[in-house]
């Protein structure tokens, strides 16, 4: 019987290709207590309220389960895993070389380079009639971009791909499985990647160049800058978050469009619609399906249910973005939708730091694929999915095409 609870069915790998009917079930109650003590929330208005509620912590060390709190405390959390004012200080420091107000043009200035990277990757598909959108395009694009942005040599990519897999594995939610081993593997990987990135940053001390690692060790920051540990933890976060999610956004986007040839044709004819289409993808098939690490600091009442202090609170963003009480006809993919305040990047103080870069990469990537490849069609539907129910996307997406356009 227990195996039938909603949370187990959502996290069950068999649900990965289409979790949306389960989300509809979740929305029947605004707050769904699970038998493992966690609370799931899947309705738009309740999720947005909780994302702005200062009594909801992002720090797993506030969990009442002592084992969970201990595992979370083993390595310093990154700024997505801590609360204000610590979160605010770390995020602002990391933002200094990346975005407004100090570096407002950073992402925009990468436009040309991302176009060149995307065009280069598409050109490499010329002689392959069957391509894997993930391995041949959607993965290498953001990896190249984040490496250049951070200042990581791209030849090290195979090394950090292993670490990254382990870190993402730590986010897996399987209520039937003891998370200790996965969590420890993730912690190990974060530590190794942190040492590696910290070493790279150290090499740049006193030799400023135009990348974030260099800025972290060389720029004057009135907030005091980052300690050695903070530098490592923040760099790991940026490297992992900077590519794991964008791969899924691009791949989910291609899959969604290939399933809807009329919309694909529309975007091919009117590429100016692409920014709007990417927003709709973030609503319709978001790379981050849920935020699993929220915890109330006091008993918090949500839609008449008391979520106790210290309980795991899981905000299912992908469900909220398809809530019929917020969006008209929510299960329809409509690239021309204008009322589209989705939860794809979260909301509130932890709203996605890299959103402008993710948007730009997805817009450029999908534009390049649609423009250059003729007669695109899915070879396998549904495709095989990655394990994680949190960062959801196909592991492979095999498509066929009739060749490069002239």
């Amino acid at each position, binding site marked *: 019987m227990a195996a039938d609870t909603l949370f187990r069915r959502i996290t069950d790998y068999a649900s990965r290709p289409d979790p949306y009917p389960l989300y509809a079930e979740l929305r029947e109650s605004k707050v769904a207590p699970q038998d493992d003590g966690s609370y799931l929330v899947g309705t738009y208005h309740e999720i*947005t*309220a909780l994302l*702005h*509620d*200062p*009594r*909801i*912590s992002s*720090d797993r060390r506030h969990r009442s389960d002592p084992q969970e709190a201990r595992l979370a405390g083993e390595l310093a959390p990154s700024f997505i895993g801590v*609360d*204000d*004012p610590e979160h*605010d200080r770390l995020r602002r420091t990391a933002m200094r070389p990346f975005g407004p107000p100090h570096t407002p043009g950073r992402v925009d200035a990468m436009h040309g380079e991302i176009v060149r990277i995307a065009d280069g990757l598409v050109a490499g598909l010329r002689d392959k009639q069957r391509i894997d959108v993930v391995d041949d395009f959607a993965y290498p694009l953001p990896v190249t971009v984040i490496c250049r942005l951070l200042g990581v040599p791209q030849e090290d990519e195979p090394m950090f791909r292993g670490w990254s897999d382990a870190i993402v594995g730590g986010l897996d939610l399987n209520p039937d499985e003891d998370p200790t081993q996965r969590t420890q593997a993730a912690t190990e990987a974060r530590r190794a990647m942190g040492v590696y990135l910290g070493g790279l940053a150290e090499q740049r001390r006193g030799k400023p160049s135009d990348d974030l690692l260099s800025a972290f060790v060389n720029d004057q920051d009135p907030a005091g800058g980052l300690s050695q540990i903070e530098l490592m933890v923040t760099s790991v976060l940026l490297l992992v978050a900077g590519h794991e999610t964008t791969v899924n956004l691009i791949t989910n986007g291609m899959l969604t469009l290939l399933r809807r040839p009329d919309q694909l044709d529309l975007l091919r004819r009117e590429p100016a619609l692409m920014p709007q289409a990417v927003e709709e993808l973030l609503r319709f098939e978001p790379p981050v399906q849920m935020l699993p690490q929220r915890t*109330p*600091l*006091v008993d*918090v009442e949500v839609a008449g249910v008391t979520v106790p202090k210290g309980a795991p609170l899981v905000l299912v963003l992908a469900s909220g973005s398809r809530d019929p009480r917020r969006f008209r006809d929510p299960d329809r993919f409509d690239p021309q939708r204008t009322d589209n305040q989705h939860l794809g990047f979260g*909301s*509130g*103080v932890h*709203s996605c730091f890299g959103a402008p870069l993710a948007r730009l990469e997805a817009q450029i990537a999908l534009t390049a694929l649609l423009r250059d490849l003729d007669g695109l069609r899915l070879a396998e539907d549904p495709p095989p999915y990655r394990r994680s129910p949190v960062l959801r996307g196909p592991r492979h997406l095999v498509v066929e095409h009739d060749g490069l356009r002239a």
Partner: protein
Amino acid sequence: MSGELRDGRIVIVGASLAGLRAAETLRDEGFAGSLTLVGDEPHPPYDRPPLSKQVLLGRVPATATGLPARRPVDAQWKLGVAATGVDGIGRRVFLANGEELPFDRLLIATGTRARPWPNPAEAALDGVFALRTSDDAAGLAERLDAGPRRVLVIGAGFTGSEIASACRERDIPVTVVERGPAPLVGALGGTLAAVAAEMHRRHGVDLRCGVQVTSLEGDGRLTGARLSDGSTVEADVAVVALGAVRNTEWLAESGLAAGPRGVTCDAGCRAFNMYGIVTDDVFVAGDVARFPHPLFGYQLLALEHWGNAVAQAEVAAHNMVSAGPFRRPHLAVPTFWSSQFGHNIKSVGVPTYSDQVVVAQGSLREARLVVVYGYKGRITAAVSVNRAKWLDYYQNLIETAAPFPPEPGAADRTAPMIPLPSDVPDPAVLSHGPTVALTGHLPDRRLTLVRHGG
């Protein structure tokens, strides 16, 4: 519904943010009749928030703040000509050039103008400015470019504080003279005003509170000012930032409930006449409107906020083309923001409608905080300094009339919350109006009166 409401002649007096957004909404909602917009400035509608910020910093020319058109409005534009009166019975608007515009429905969106320096001869000195229009901003920006020796800012409300901030960012010496006890006190009360004073001083502003400028000195050109404490300030530029005056004089003979506090209207933006009877064909929106709000005891509010101008214009326009049961009330929770000395200040609700405040998140010392305002045990407003992303939470508490003080438990507030008096001064004793004006009476004054009576 009623087809005739989609047709006929609509005149909008006031061609700024509220006027333009109303025109766009009328067309969006299917109004197919003739539309005329009247504006006394020669410029097409422009945005004002950048005038005291990016324009004074020299980043954007004053001519580049035009408002983007969200859709074509297919209107006749009468710019550079003021409206001088309304004949409510004959349904005509009179213009300064002698023209008469007949209408079936009228929208008044004439907004406010800068309160002028009371002595016209002193106000005429070269170097004395106000900051309300795009032309004002262009003139002042030019003087700042020339590198004045010192700028005198008279009044430390939001506009005065933003001007002082821009001057300091450009390394121009600046003296701010404020009649009240601290900057922003009229809009935010005593607690945050103390934070604002600290912000000014830390950025090198010569801030003088509790004094007034008694005269501006000069012979053709401004040379300085005398203050009520007997001191003097030498300055070659002075900016008069003493709040705003509502543009209602042209309505003196209109028979409408129009006066210095604005044009009174119902929750659906329909103007009242001088007998307190609601009109059917005259609507009001934006800074000039004075309207009742249920969240704030139905006190009449007059707001000088960008967001209010937009929201109220949309409601007014909708109601102009909708029959009775389909009309909507203007119930938006007021919000506004300011940017000064590198700090982002944002407000939801009406801070002046309060008797107590608490620091709910962060701390006064860090100048990164959320202050929550309450009136008689209910949350009525919240103001953040560099913490704007939390305000949605407090807006929800305001909308649901949640108890004050808010429940504890915020991650970044471990010390207990101690309510303090909100210390909102009576606007009558300030030399400039707060930007969130309760045009009835102050709630805490009423509280005092009740105690005396009991």
